[in-house]
C-alpha cells in the first residue's frame, strides 16, 4: 500500500513540475507571437479601473487605456506637460477667454473608417457634461456648439484659461457618436452605452480595445485606421493587474516590460538590468490644520499653525519618499506654471516652534492626526510619514495622537471638515495650476479645513484673479503670490512632492510619466 501511494504522490508532483516547465516562463516581446520584436508589450500596474467609458472613467488605470483608445481635441507632448498642442483640432480663444473655437484637422477617422466630425465632438463633450458621471465636473459651465462640419465652439460663463488643458484629459476623448448612439448613448443621465463601451472602443486613437477584464488585464491592439500624429510601436499592449512585489519580479525577469506600481524601496532594490525613470510626480502630500475652532481651538489658532509649520523637519521627511521625491515648495508642484522656487519653501526651526507652541497653549495638549492607512500615493506610506511627523511635533512640545483608518472610512470626515489635523494628498485633475486653487478659502479643499471664504480676503482675491486671468505672465505672478501667501497664512502645510518611478526593460524607450494618464502607450518605443 505504501509503495503504491508513494508512486501516486510522485506522479502528481512530477506532473506539476512538467506543466510548469512546459510553459514559457518569459513573455519577452518576441516569445509569444514570434513575429517581430515589437509584437507586444506587457505593462504591470495595480488596477483601480472601473470603466473605460470616457465620460465615466476617472481612475489612473482607466486613463491609460482611454488615452490609447480615444483622441482628444488637444493634448500634451510626452516630454512636455506644460504646453497644450493640437491633436484632433487646433484652437483659438477670444481675449477674455470665454469663447474657444476649435477647427478639426482634416481627414482624421475613427477605427471603423468614418470621419471625425463636429457632430462627434459636440456629442462627446455634451455627453461628458450631461451624464453626471465621475468626470462631468470638468466641463461645468461650458456650452458646446457646432459652428460647421469642422468647427466647434466652446463658451464658458467665466473666463477659463484652464479649459484647453482640461480638454486634453482622456475623459474628454472624442467618440464615434453614431456607434455610441446606436448602443444606447445619450447626452444626459439616461445614457446606457457604458456596457457597450466596456467591451468595445469607439474612438480614433492609435489603439482599439481587444479585451477588458477589470480584475486581471486589458488588451489593446493597434488601430489599423489610425492616421494621427503618433506612431504606435507595439502591435499589442497588455496591461495587467499585478501586486507590486510581483511586478518587481516580473520586470526583472522580463515577463513584463514596464512596472508602474513600485514603491521607492522596491525601486531602490531593483536589479541593474532594469532602467528606472524617476521624475517628480504632480502629487502633493500635505497636512491640513482645521481652521474651525469648534473642531479644535489650537489648530484654528494662527500661532499654533505657525508652530506646527516650524516644527516639521522637511528634509528628513524626504528620506521616506525615495527616488525622485522633493520637498513641496508650495501647493502647486514643480512642473506647473506658478510653482514656487525652493527658496520659498517652508523651513524647520525647532526653537521658534517650541516658543510658538508654548505661547499659543498647544504644548501639553493633544491633537489628533487622521490619515488613510491603506493608500500609498506613488508608493509613499502615509502611516510611516505620520509617525515621523508625530515624533517631530513632539520635539516641539506638541503631542499628536495618530488616528489611521481605511480610505473609505476616513474620506468622509476629511470631506466634511471634521479632522483636526489631516494628512492627505492631491493629484491634479488636469495639467493646469488652477487645479490647486481648490485649496483657497471657501474653495472645496479649503472648506475641508474649515477655512471659510471670508477667512482671508487677500488670498480669496488672489484665487479669484488666478482663476480668470489669461495672460501667462500675469498668471504666473498671481500663482506665485498665491503660493507664498498660502505657505505663510493658510491652514495647509505642503510636505512632499513624491517621485514617480517607472521601471522598464532597456528594450523599451520613450518612457515618460504623465501626471494625468501616467503613460502614453502609443508613445513607447523599442530599442
Amino acid at each position, binding site marked *: *500500500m*505504501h509503495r503504491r*501511494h508513494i508512486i*501516486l*504522490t510522485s506522479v*502528481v508532483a512530477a506532473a*506539476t513540475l512538467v*506543466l*510548469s*516547465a*512546459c*510553459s*514559457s*516562463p*518569459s*513573455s519577452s516581446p518576441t516569445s*509569444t*507571437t514570434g513575429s517581430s520584436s515589437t509584437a*507586444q508589450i506587457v505593462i504591470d500596474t495595480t488596477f483601480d479601473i*472601473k*470603466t473605460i467609458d470616457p465620460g*465615466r472613467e*476617472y481612475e489612473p488605470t482607466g486613463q491609460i487605456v482611454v488615452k490609447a483608445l480615444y483622441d482628444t481635441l488637444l493634448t500634451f507632448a510626452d516630454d512636455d506637460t506644460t504646453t497644450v498642442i493640437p491633436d484632433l483640432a487646433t484652437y483659438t480663444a477670444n481675449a477674455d477667454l470665454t469663447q474657444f473655437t476649435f477647427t478639426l484637422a482634416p481627414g482624421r477617422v475613427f477605427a471603423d473608417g468614418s470621419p471625425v466630425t463636429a457632430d462627434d465632438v459636440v456629442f462627446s463633450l455634451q455627453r461628458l457634461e450631461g*451624464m*453626471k*458621471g*465621475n*468626470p*462631468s*465636473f470638468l466641463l461645468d459651465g461650458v456650452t458646446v456648439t457646432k459652428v460647421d462640419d469642422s468647427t466647434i465652439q466652446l463658451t464658458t460663463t467665466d473666463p477659463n484659461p484652464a479649459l484647453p488643458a482640461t480638454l486634453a484629459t482622456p475623459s474628454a476623448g472624442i467618440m464615434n457618436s453614431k456607434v455610441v448612439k446606436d448602443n444606447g448613448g445619450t447626452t444626459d*443621465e439616461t445614457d446606457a452605452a*457604458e*456596457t457597450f463601451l*466596456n467591451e468595445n472602443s469607439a474612438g480614433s486613437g492609435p489603439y482599439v480595445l481587444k479585451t477588458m*477584464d*477589470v*480584475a*486581471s*488585464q486589458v488588451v489593446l491592439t493597434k488601430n489599423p485606421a489610425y492616421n494621427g500624429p503618433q506612431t504606435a510601436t507595439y502591435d*499589442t499592449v497588455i496591461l*495587467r*493587474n499585478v*501586486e507590486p*512585489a*510581483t511586478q518587481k*519580479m*516580473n520586470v526583472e*525577469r522580463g*515577463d*513584463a516590460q514596464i512596472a508602474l506600481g513600485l514603491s521607492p524601496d522596491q525601486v531602490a532594490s531593483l536589479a541593474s538590468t532594469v532602467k528606472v525613470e524617476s521624475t517628480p510626480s504632480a502629487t502633493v502630500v500635505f497636512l491640513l490644520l482645521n481652521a474651525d475652532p469648534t473642531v479644535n481651538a489650537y489648530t484654528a489658532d494662527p500661532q499654533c499653525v505657525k508652530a506646527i509649520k516650524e516644527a516639521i523637519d522637511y528634509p528628513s521627511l524626504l528620506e521616506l519618499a525615495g527616488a525622485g521625491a522633493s520637498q513641496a515648495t508650495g501647493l502647486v508642484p514643480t512642473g506647473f506654471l506658478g510653482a514656487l522656487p525652493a527658496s520659498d519653501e517652508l523651513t524647520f526651526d525647532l526653537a521658534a516652534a517650541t516658543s510658538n507652541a508654548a505661547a499659543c497653549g498647544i504644548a501639553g495638549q493633544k491633537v489628533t492626526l487622521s490619515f488613510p492607512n491603506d493608500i500609498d500615493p506613488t508608493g509613499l506610506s502615509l502611516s510611516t510619514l505620520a509617525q515621523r511627523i508625530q515624533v517631530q511635533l513632539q520635539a516641539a512640545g506638541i503631542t499628536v495622537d495618530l488616528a489611521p483608518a*481605511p*480610505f*473609505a*472610512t476616513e*474620506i*468622509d470626515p476629511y*470631506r466634511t471638515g471634521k479632522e483636526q489635523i489631516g494628512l492627505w494628498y*492631491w493629484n491634479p485633475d488636469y495639467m493646469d495650476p488652477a487645479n490647486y486653487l*481648490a485649496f483657497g478659502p471657501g474653495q*472645496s479643499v479649503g472648506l475641508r479645513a474649515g477655512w471659510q471664504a471670508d477667512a482671508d480676503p487677500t488670498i480669496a482675491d488672489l484665487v479669484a484673479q488666478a482663476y480668470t486671468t489669461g495672460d501667462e505672465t500675469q498668471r504666473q505672478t498671481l500663482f506665485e503670490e498665491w503660493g507664498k501667501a498660502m505657505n505663510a497664512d493658510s491652514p495647509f502645510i505642503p510636505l512632499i512632492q513624491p517621485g514617480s518611478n517607472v521601471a522598464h526593460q532597456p528594450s523599451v524607450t520613450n518612457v515618460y510619466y504623465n501626471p494625468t494618464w501616467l503613460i502614453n502607450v502609443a508613445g513607447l518605443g523599442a530599442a
Partner: protein
Amino acid sequence: MSQDSVRPDTAESPSPSSTLTRGRRSHSSLVRYLARRLIITAVLLVGITLVTFTLTNLVPGDPVAAALGQRAADDPAIVAQFRAQYGLDKSLPEQYWAYLTRLAHLNLGTSWQTHRPVAQDLARAIPATMEIALSAIVMAIIVGLVLGAVSAYRRGRISDQVLRLISLLGISLPTFWTAILVFYIFYYKLGIAPGSGRLSPGMPAPPHVTGMYTLDALLAGQGETFVDAAAHLALPSLVLTLYTVGLLTRFSRMSFLEVLDKDFVRAARAKGLPGHTVFFRYVLRAAAIPILTMVGLAFGSLLSGTVLVESIFSWPGLGSYAYQAASKLDLLAVMGVGLFVGVVYLGINLVVDVLYGFIDPRVKVG
C-alpha cells in the same frame, strides 16, 4: 457536519421481506430531509443578507465619497445622480427590501466599483477560485490521506515524527509567505514556473464553458492553452495544497489511529486478511466520516477565497474581489460575496451530511 441531523440507526438485522419496504422508506425520508434542509437553507440565506446588509451599513464612511473622485464628490449633481443610480437615496429598509426583491429574480444588483452586475462579477471570479480550490483539495486529499495513513501505521517511529513535523509546518506557515517563497524560487530564481496570472501574456483565454481555463481548454481541444493554464495553476494550487495537506494529514492520522485500535480491525488482521484489504475495507471506511467533515470545511475555506495567495499570483478570484469590495464599501458586491460564501458552506454541509449516510449504514438522515 451538523451532528444533530444525523443519528445512528438501530442495529437490527433486516429480514429479506422487509428490505424493499425499508428501501422505499429510506428514499422518502431522504427526500423529506433534503426538502427540510433546503427550506432551512433559504431562511439562513435571507438571514445572511440581513446580517451582511446591517454590518456593511454600520461601517463608518460614505460609499459615495469612497466611490467618486475628490472633485466629483463635491458636485451635488454628480452625487445625486450616483445615489439615484444605486438606490442610495432611499431609506435603509427600502434599500434592503429592494435588494431582496431583486434577489428573488436572481439579480444581485450592480457593483459601483466595477460598474457591472455583481452576478457577472461573481461568475467571473468564482470559476477562477474554484479552479485553484478543486485542484488543491484533490491533491490534498490524496497526499494528506496517504501521509496520514503512513503516519498512523508507523506510529511512534521516525517516519511518523517526520510526517507530523511536516504537517505541522504545513499548517503553521502563513500561506502568503509560502506563496511569495515558491513564486520567488520556482519563477524568479529557477525560471521553471510561469509568472503571475492565469495565462501567459498574449495567450487567448479558451472559449467560456465553465470559466475554469484548464477544463475549458480541454473541452475546446486547445492543448497549448491547457498546458499554459495548468502551469499557471500549479504554484498557487501547490501553496494551498501544502496548507490543506498539513491539515488533512494530522486529522486523518488521528482518525486512523482511533480506528486501528478497534476490535474489528484486530479481528480482520487475525483472520489473515491482506493489509490493503484491512485498510480499504475496514480502516478507511470507519475513519472516513471525521475526515469527510474536515475535507468539507477545508474545501469551503478554499472556496471562500484566499485573498493573499490570489493577490501574489495575480489570480482574479473571489478573494481579491471580496477584498476590493470591502475596502471600497461596495455594499452590493460585499453582499453578493457573503451570499455565495453562505451558499458554499450550507451546500457543503448538506452534501457531507448526505454522504455520511452512504459511507456508514449506521447513520441515517432525518
